[in-house]
């Protein structure tokens, strides 16, 4: 089986040196460690927003970065979805348009909007589809950001501390939602957090980071979920 993501990169920024290598399979893999450990930098390298000094990145069997051969596939061509810490929704567009813009698998505005609507329903955000992001609460914004990250049929979804700007009650609520939606979608995910409880609750695998290095890897014991069937209603109940 092809790994969803293979990373082996180095990157020097001032005094800080990132030198990591890990593999991600299906489910949610959590990059866990203290602030400044290089977790978000790793996500930026995977997304193609920055270039490593050396190494390779392979997403779903496709080499997207290979420094030795000067290969750097653009962010747009990587088929990734990304959920940022504070959502980063486009403030001049409606919630529906924000999600519809990310839809790559459908052509034409009505088709893209239909896909966007279905994703907004899945994250419980259909009620504010026509509102602007500025009028939403932090939790609502992150629901929309999650829908946007998954709406483009990505090969991999990256979540950069998606809950860190929220209060604890909303965090708990969204934690369940994130896990439920990502697992039911079948899209492998890499999530960054410095919160141990969050790493435990969300991750199938926890990859520990410290000072720019991977210091450990642990599989989290979880109930077995059914494989998502194309066209069938998604179930999130463990078997």
């Amino acid at each position: 089986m092809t790994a969803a993501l293979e990373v082996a990169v180095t990157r020097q920024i001032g005094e800080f040196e990132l030198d990591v290598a890990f593999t991600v399979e299906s489910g949610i893999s959590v990059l866990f460690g203290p602030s400044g450990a290089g977790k978000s930098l790793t996500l930026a390298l995977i997304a193609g927003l920055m270039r490593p000094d050396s190494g390779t990145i392979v997403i779903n069997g496709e080499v997207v970065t290979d420094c030795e051969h000067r290969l750097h596939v653009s962010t747009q061509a990587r088929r990734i979805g990304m959920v940022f810490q504070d959502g980063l929704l486009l403030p001049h567009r409606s919630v529906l348009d924000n999600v519809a813009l990310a839809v790559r698998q459908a052509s034409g505005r009505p088709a893209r909007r239909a896909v966007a609507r279905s994703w907004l329903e899945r994250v419980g955000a259909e009620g504010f589809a026509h509102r602007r992001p500025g009028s939403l609460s932090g939790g609502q914004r992150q629901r929309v950001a999650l829908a946007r990250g998954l709406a483009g049929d990505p090969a991999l979804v990256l979540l950069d501390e998606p809950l860190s700007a929220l209060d604890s009650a909303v965090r708990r609520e969204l934690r369940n939602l994130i896990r439920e939606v990502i697992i039911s979608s079948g899209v492998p995910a890499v999530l960054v957090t410095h919160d141990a409880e969050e790493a435990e609750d969300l991750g199938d695998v926890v990859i520990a980071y410290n000072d720019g290095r991977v210091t450990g890897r642990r599989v989290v014991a979880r109930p077995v979920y059914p494989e998502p069937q194309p066209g069938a209603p998604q179930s999130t109940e463990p078997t």
Partner: protein
Amino acid sequence: MKRARTIAQTIGGRQKTAVIVVTVLVGFGLGFGVAHLMAGSIAYWGVVSGPLLLTLRVAIPATVIAGTAGIASGYVLAKGRFPGRDVLETLGSLPIILPPTVIGFYLLEVLSPGTQVGGFVTRVVGHVLVYNVFGCIIAATIAAFPFCMRAARTAIEGVDPLLEQAARTMGLPNWLVALRVTLPLSRRGIAAGLTIGCARALGEYGATLMVGGDISGKTRTLSLAILDSFTTPERNTMLLILVLMAITAMTGVGLLGRSRT
């Protein structure tokens, strides 16, 4: 002011254009009416209408050309990473600093069929570009361009680059990121630049005089006509029209600038 904000937030794109047209017309009407009351006569329309309409024929295309070129070059200056970027901006900004007569002189050198360069340009274009309305439009465009360019650059640089990065992770190609993210988010600054550029085109004098020639009925714009009629009663009408047009247009644009983000 609160009421003005409410209006700006509720009206759509077409209504906004209508507001601008109406405010300019109101300015014109006020100018004409007040001048009439002050001078006690309404015999100025024939004198004023020609220069006024010519000014609009010059300022509108000049603003469109300067705006388009200004936004494009502002984008390149804001986003491009190449040597000589600052030199290019300085060159583009020269019309702000140079006396209009100097600009007029160089424009004559470049456009006049009697000069080497101008002769070549005239042959290429197939049309004489001085002492006619084209010369006036070129002079007004050059005058308006730096305001549009500088405002666009500043506004585009002010857009959060993280939002552009987020758009790229959504698969949008760079040109769509520019059209759907960068330019919409910098529209207020760009609109301010276009407003000042348009005002500059409306009031252009020195270069227009040299390149256009102040020919009555052909190249005599409102600002040239004001000087020509300085000793006659018509000047009151023209002065008031310009002042009140400027005030009402700026009020209208200011009102529209408060539209929601």
